[in-house]
């Protein structure tokens, strides 16, 4: 049960332990954090199974790992390793130009990214058990996460005032079954948990996402690219647990050292959020 928790990107057993000590509900095992993928370029793939095994052995909280979009064999390998969740992630270089993984074929649950409601519903139709709004990974800039959370919220609200004919046409536009659209309309939210991701660098960023209505937060580069990872990780966990308490947020935001270096979205060469179909 991950709700109300923080999931942290880690690249080693040592980092995984720091995340667990801070109170993370899960860790995401990967070879390079998004900020480094962005800086170094090249093809980003599933992490070395050896590394994933090391991380799984180091902590007792759930371990997630990323597979490339459409790379169902990487997902099969991750499932065989026994990871708790597979993240079919745009942070890695996509492997299929038009299709995502058919997630119903797996027993391991999947988390997938979305920038809007249509993208989320396609992923849920394919069998995703958890969603995350994408944001723009590796930038330390929260604007895209906020954009995607608000877009999804607004699009769900819009469904409420639609008649059956309009809902059918939305389903066509979203390329999903109308039953799923009707279900979302009735629930007023996704039928699965939805976390925020991409660009979270401070406790305030994390609490902002929570106040906008997500179920929890992924922090990628924000922790281990800051000057004091252990302290910042704990502060972000505390901020998510007490996200409405401004006095508390003020207290945990003190003395965290330098946050990760941030990037302006308009200056980026690659926008990872655009990967996914």
């Amino acid at each position, binding site marked *: *049960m*991950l*709700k*109300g*928790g923080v999931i942290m990107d880690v690249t080693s057993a040592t980092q995984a332990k720091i995340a*667990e*000590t*801070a*109170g*993370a*509900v*899960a860790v995401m095992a990967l070879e390079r954090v998004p900020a480094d993928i962005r800086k170094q370029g090249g093809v980003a793939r599933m992490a070395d199974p050896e590394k994933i095994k090391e991380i799984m052995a180091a902590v*007792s*909280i*759930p371990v997630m790992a990323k597979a490339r979009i459409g790379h169902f064999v990487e997902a099969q390998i991750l*499932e065989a390793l*026994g*990871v*708790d*969740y597979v993240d079919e992630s745009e942070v890695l270089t996509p492997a299929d130009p038009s299709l995502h993984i058919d997630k119903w074929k797996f*027993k*391991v*649950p999947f988390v997938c990214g979305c920038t809007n409601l249509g993208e989320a519903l396609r992923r849920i139709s394919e069998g995703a058990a958890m969603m995350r709004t994408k944001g723009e990974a590796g930038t330390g800039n929260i604007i895209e996460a906020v954009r995607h959370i608000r877009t999804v919220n607004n699009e769900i609200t819009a469904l409420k005032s639609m008649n059956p004919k309009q809902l059918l046409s939305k389903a066509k536009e979203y390329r999903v079954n109308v039953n799923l659209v009707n279900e979302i309309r009735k629930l007023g939210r996704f039928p699965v948990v939805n976390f925020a991701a991409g660009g979270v660098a401070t406790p305030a960023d994390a609490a902002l996402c929570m106040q906008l209505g997500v179920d929890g937060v992924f922090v990628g580069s924000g922790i281990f690219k800051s000057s004091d990872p252990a302290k910042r990780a704990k502060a972000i*966990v*505390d901020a*998510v*647990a*007490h996200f409405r*308490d401004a006095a508390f947020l003020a207290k945990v935001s003190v003395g965290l050292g330098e946050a990760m270096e941030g990037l302006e979205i308009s200056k980026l060469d690659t926008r990872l959020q655009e990967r996914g179909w």
Partner: protein
Amino acid sequence: MIGVLALQGGVIEHVRMLERCGKKAIEVRAKDDLKKVNALILPGGESTTLFKLMKRQGLDTEIKKRAKKGMPVFGTCAGMIVLAKEIIDNREQGLGLIDISVKRNDYGRQVDSFEEEIDVRDIGKVNAVFIRAPIVKSCGKDVEVLARQNKNPILLKQNNILVASFHPELTDDKRVHELFLKMNSII
């Protein structure tokens, strides 16, 4: 008023279930919130995270104190681990409010999560959802076993404490919550 510990985990599901039972529920995040409630639910979540967040608020000692004075407490999944006397192979120390020894994630990792119909004493058939569930390895003589799955106790009671290794808040069935409410005459 019934509180649901709201530091992490399936909080809203318990709040809704209590509302369906006709009870008002509040979220408990700090010691001041705990003063307002006369019963408490510890939800499922990550037990490691729950322990850390409770300690940071001093809620662990406060909950222990209140429960020892008779406050009814119901722990589900990770909430059960938190209440246990012994947690096998773990660095965290349970609150020791129920005389059971538990092993975390003993049904396996996330892929081994499952749903199964179980038989609950005085209630009958209940659909139980297990997610990375803990297993009760042994329990003291003062603990009553109300349900089992594959011989393992999964719903247990000791005086004012009720624990479930599954997630009764994730189904439409409110009978396990009603059992908690009745058990302590909160209804």
